[in-house]
């Protein structure tokens, strides 16, 4: 393979990038004239169709980290990468079956509208806004740090420049174009990403006679049958279930996803949009996995990991190998667009929690006028955008992978239980909701700090690295010994003794590994379970007859849509 141009500023990618920025800014200009009222700012005037919203949801959800990251994981770990990708899709049916339609019928702009529908406004809005903001902020920091790192890898642009460019563009889209511009940025990105990935998959499969068997056969020939078998990803089933729950129910509690359902005119369109979104996202993950296997065979693990240990450049390298510099440039620009669409959606969701829930709902006690609310939303957009840039720069070079897991855990524990119970359960009370949200929020955030993800991998990372080094040294020594014994055709007992000694040594070293006080990598199982439990107990203890009376009326609106906005 010729020398890769990845990591250099290349005119083709710059040209594609400018084309994207120019067209999205034109859309923002067009949208700005249609973004004056709150309904327009938060919900694009409810003018988006189900199909468009399906694409926009996909554009909101498919991050650069999942595109580059999953392709990279598959190309370096094989089947384990495929397992990982499945977890990111399975939340969507849950959104459809339990949340989408009642959310659309009951709320106005945020999911807190739904929880506050028959409960007391002030405490609910404050707590729900806290849940939203924590989810959005952690997700946003992770995206920003990812953006800086990926853009640096791909374009060779300094980290800080990348963050500032991403930050300024996302502020521009949201500030001037509100939800309408954000929606179209997400739609364009989804089309580009799905189109680009499809072309890459067609090019890949053409090398294997359009036969998946051929592709997998070559992969197992090159890396052994283990490459197509589950490896070390799921070792502890409880851990896997906890992460699975967080991913599944977290998707149904992500504020930037939930907010998108208010952009369609009614529940029927909301329902359609989940169907399209699930199809697009599922198709995208299947493409990404194919790209990963293709890169493993056609580019090779070694080349991929030489550029980035995490494998993030697998897809760009494959694009370069199959479609040359032009296709690489195109794909790099698509990755940039991907980042922008996701962070714009997040910023808008965070701004609406601040302006709609906190300013209008709590500070103004629900009596804010339109103009002021839009103004506050715009100030919040700038504030959030600037903080995202600063935090992105602050966390440069830090391990932020846990932040996405944390965002999902908080969404599944603080946002989802309160939302579901407020829709489904008559006896749910204000105190119950507040207790449930804070339990989920505090437990999810607290437990992740003392979990192996942060406690071992970040706080005690140097101890962990030291033990790992000792283990690999011991392994190398023992391997050398076994080899010399084998060469000398020594007694097989001596060899097995040596192997046993290594086993004992490894066990002893493993006991020196720093231990996290909380055993699970993702707290979802405990924090979400506790949020439901506390929500139920407190609601039963503090019965709220007014809220129960309103439940029938809520049901009528949730199911039929009468009175919905």
């Amino acid at each position, binding site marked *: 393979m010729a020398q890769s141009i990845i990591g250099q500023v290349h005119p083709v990618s710059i040209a594609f990038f400018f084309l994207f920025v120019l067209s999205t800014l034109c859309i923002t200009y067009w949208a700005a004239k249609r973004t004056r009222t709150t309904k327009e700012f938060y919900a694009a005037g409810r003018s988006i169709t189900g199909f468009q919203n399906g694409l926009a949801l996909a554009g909101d959800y498919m991050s650069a980290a999942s595109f580059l990251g999953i392709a990279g994981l598959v190309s370096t770990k094989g089947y384990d990468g*495929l397992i990982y990708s499945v977890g990111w899709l399975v939340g969507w049916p849950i959104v459809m*079956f339990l949340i989408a*339609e009642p959310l659309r019928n009951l709320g106005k702009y945020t999911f807190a509208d739904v929880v506050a529908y028959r409960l007391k406004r002030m405490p609910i809005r404050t707590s729900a806004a806290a849940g939203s903001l924590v989810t959005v902020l952690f997700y946003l920091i992770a995206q920003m740090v990812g953006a800086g790192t990926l853009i640096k890898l791909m374009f060779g642009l300094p980290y800080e420049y990348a963050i500032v460019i991403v930050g300024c563009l996302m502020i521009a889209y949201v500030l001037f174009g509100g939800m309408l511009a954000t929606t179209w940025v997400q739609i364009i990105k989804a089309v580009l990403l799905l189109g680009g990935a499809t072309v890459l998959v067609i090019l890949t499969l053409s090398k294997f006679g359009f036969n998946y068997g051929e592709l997998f056969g070559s992969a197992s020939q090159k890396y052994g049958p283990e490459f*197509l*078998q589950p490896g070390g990803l799921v070792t502890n089933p409880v851990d896997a279930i906890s992460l699975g729950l967080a991913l599944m129910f977290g998707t149904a509690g992500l504020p930037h996803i939930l907010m998108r359902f208010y952009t369609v005119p009614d529940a*029927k369109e909301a329902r359609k949009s989940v169907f399209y979104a*699930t199809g697009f996202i599922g198709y995208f993950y*299947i493409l990404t996995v194919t790209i990963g296997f293709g890169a493993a065979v056609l580019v090779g693990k070694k080349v991929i990991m030489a550029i980035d240990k995490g494998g993030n450049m697998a897809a760009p390298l494959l694009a370069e190998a199959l479609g040359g510099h032009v296709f690489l440039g195109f794909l790099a620009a698509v990755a940039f667009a991907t980042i922008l669409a996701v962070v714009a959606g997040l910023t808008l969701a965070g701004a609406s929690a601040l302006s709609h829930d906190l300013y209008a709902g709590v500070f103004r006690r629900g009596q804010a006028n339109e103009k002021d609310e839009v103004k506050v939303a715009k100030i919040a957009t700038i504030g959030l955008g600037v903080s995202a840039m600063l935090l992105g720069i602050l966390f440069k070079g830090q391990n932020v992978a846990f932040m996405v897991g944390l965002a999902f855990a908080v969404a599944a524990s603080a946002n989802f239980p309160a939302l579901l119970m407020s829709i489904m359960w008559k006896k749910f009370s204000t105190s119950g909701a507040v207790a449930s949200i804070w339990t989920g929020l505090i437990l999810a955030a607290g437990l992740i700090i003392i979990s192996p993800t942060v406690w071992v991998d970040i706080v005690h990372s140097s101890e962990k690295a030291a033990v790992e080094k000792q283990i690999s040294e011991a392994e190398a020594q023992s391997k050398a010994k076994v080899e010399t014994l084998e060469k000398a055709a020594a007694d097989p007992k001596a060899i097995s003794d040596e192997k046993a000694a290594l086993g004992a040594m490894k066990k002893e070293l493993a006991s020196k590994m720093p231990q996290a006080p909380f055993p699970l990598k993702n707290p979802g199982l405990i924090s979400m379970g506790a949020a439901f439990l506390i929500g139920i107990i407190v609601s039963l203890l503090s019965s709220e007859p007014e809220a129960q009376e309103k439940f*029938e*009326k809520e049901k009528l609106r949730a199911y039929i849509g009468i009175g919905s906005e």
Partner: protein
Amino acid sequence: MYLIKCRPALYAVNYKKEDYMSGNKTSFNFKDDKDFIKLSRQKSFVSIVLTILELFFYFGFISLIAFNKQFLSSMLTERITVGIPIAVGVIVMSWILTGIYVYWANNTYDVLVKKVKDKVEG
């Protein structure tokens, strides 16, 4: 005020509903309405069954990885392990389930919704 200006139809609906809330006897009593009860029961039933199915597919897959790696590692054809179509199957099944829901909602649920809506709005 904004809503009233823009959407007179919506205002009319709200007005009717207020009638009901204030105990107007001529209003439709949806709580005891057969169609409304049928609709809310059906909707809960379908939602819960489909949710359980989805949980079953995903956590079934996770359990296979945790407890029966050999099965997933066995060869389906000469070149493909059983695990690959199963993983892709979970993705495809998730989508099919959302399709089943939409099909049911468009053809059965919406009919009931319209029936009840007509009654409420008179």
